[in-house]
């Protein structure tokens, strides 16, 4: 069996309860290399809880998440040591926060922001780090003469693009995105989505993207999972779910988009 025919991320019966309150209930899916999965739903539907569990930031109450490591062996993430988990997070994974200030070092130059992961995995040549940083800035359409400026001097859209570059520099295979277009104006959103779609295709990234914006899901994802009250109520190919929703809630969600 070729590597690409085996799932990258496997999630089985994942549940999280906060006391009596349920954050997320019995979620299972498989994610294949190069696949983009959108998790949609309204606020409080458990999207972010799920994303945090997938990315090992939150411990599930039940169920498990396994990941096929670079050596080809699929391992239960709960059994990884902290060092291994953090290493995975800086190399084979990316995490794009909704608020770029969470994912960037705001007072450190853009070049160092992108280069940090490289230095963390042992790159010791300034010239090479800088060259790689600047080529990544170009790829995310940030002018390279801004390389020595700190992201606090950047606009919202630029910060988000810088955050993406910072995550992709170690060529991860899986990227988590939490509302990456939240808080950006529409034209900037469109440009960012275009960029992300290009990079995903080019690099063959697998992406789990959480969004409440169905347009984002339609544009980026291959598959959609609709969540409500902590449960997955509908799942399928993006076109299928958005054009022919079966569940009443999904129908409501789809019909609530304002016509362009």
């Amino acid at each position: 069996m070729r590597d690409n025919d085996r799932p990258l991320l496997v999630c089985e019966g994942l549940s999280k309860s906060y006391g009596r309150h349920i954050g997320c209930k019995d979620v299972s899916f498989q994610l294949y290399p190069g696949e983009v999965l959108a998790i949609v739903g309204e606020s409080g539907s458990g999207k972010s809880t799920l994303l945090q569990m997938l990315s090992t930031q939150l411990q599930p109450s039940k169920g498990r998440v396994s990941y096929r490591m670079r050596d080809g062996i699929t391992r239960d993430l709960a059994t990884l040591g902290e060092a291994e988990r953090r290493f995975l997070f800086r190399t084979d994974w990316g995490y794009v926060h909704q608020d770029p200030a969470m994912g960037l070092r705001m007072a450190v130059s853009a070049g160092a922001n992108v280069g940090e992961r490289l230095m963390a995995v042992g790159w010791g040549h300034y010239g090479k780090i800088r060259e790689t940083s600047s080529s990544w800035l170009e790829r995310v359409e940030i002018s390279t003469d801004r390389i020595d400026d700190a992201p606090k001097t950047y606009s919202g859209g630029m910060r988000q693009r810088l955050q993406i570059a910072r995550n992709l520099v170690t060529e991860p295979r899986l990227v988590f995105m939490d509302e990456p277009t939240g808080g950006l104006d529409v034209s900037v959103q469109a440009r960012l989505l275009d960029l992300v779609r290009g990079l995903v295709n080019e690099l063959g990234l697998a992406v789990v993207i959480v969004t409440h914006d169905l347009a984002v899901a339609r544009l980026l994802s291959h598959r959609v999972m609709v969540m409500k009250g902590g449960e997955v109520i509908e799942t399928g190919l993006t076109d299928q779910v958005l054009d022919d929703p079966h569940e009443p809630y999904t129908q409501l969600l789809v019909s609530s988009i304002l016509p362009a």
Partner: protein
Amino acid sequence: MNAPVYNFAYLDEQTKRMIRRAILKAIAIPGYQVPFASREMPMPYGWGTGGVQVTAAILGQGDTLKVIDQGSDDTTNAISIRKFFEKTANVKTTTVTSDATVIQTRHRIPETALNDNQVLVYQVPIPEPLRFLEPRETETRRMHALGEYGLMHVKLYEDIARHGHIATTYAYPVKVNERYVMDPSPTPKFDNPKMDDCEALQLFGAGREKRIYAIPPHTKVTSLDFEDHPFETYRFDAPCALCGSKTSYLDEVVVDDKGGRMFVCSDTDYCETRRADGHKGAGFGADHQVM
């Protein structure tokens, strides 16, 4: 009125035991910051309360103490601490580096090579080298535990991006025994190479931050750098005006308001010893006329 009676070297014996345990642990794990129950000392924080506690804990009756502040034996801080131990421990004190068995220092390592019968005690203001990049103590401890030091290079990267070279000139981060990244206290980076494979035991005490760390004798200490921007020491390009030394670390002394300045050894004992041996510098006034 009764004059206060101090225990030998001011601290009570239980406190000294506590500090010695921290020191032993620090020696066992070179470069690791060991927390200890730092005491209030009769001097303000920032004046060497950490160094004084370490010195008090290791001082014995047969020891000879030398205290330097920025290389000098005769500045206020050095004199006060020396007098403090003369009074509370009644130990011999000296200014001669080679005669001392315990040397407490603020921001310099003596020019004279140290030997295996000596202990160098550093006063440390901020022991955490990652502090200005990562303000959370929980996070920096985890980074030390897991050996995640990418962030330290981010700082050096920023230096080169801004100034074209590594512009950190003091408190230059080092890696001890190929494991822990350590702040060598605000010594000039000129002194960093002296820490490597040093014959003497080096102890670091931070009173306010309540940390002790150590470099045992003959431990490998490397300064962090990049392959294409290797670590370099810096020294003013001049001989000492008093003793003519071309290798010692120099202080720049402004001598008038017309741009006149002279360069002299920062290590006063080293300079005096050389002058006593007959070495002479160009002297104050040779290339500068006093008005």
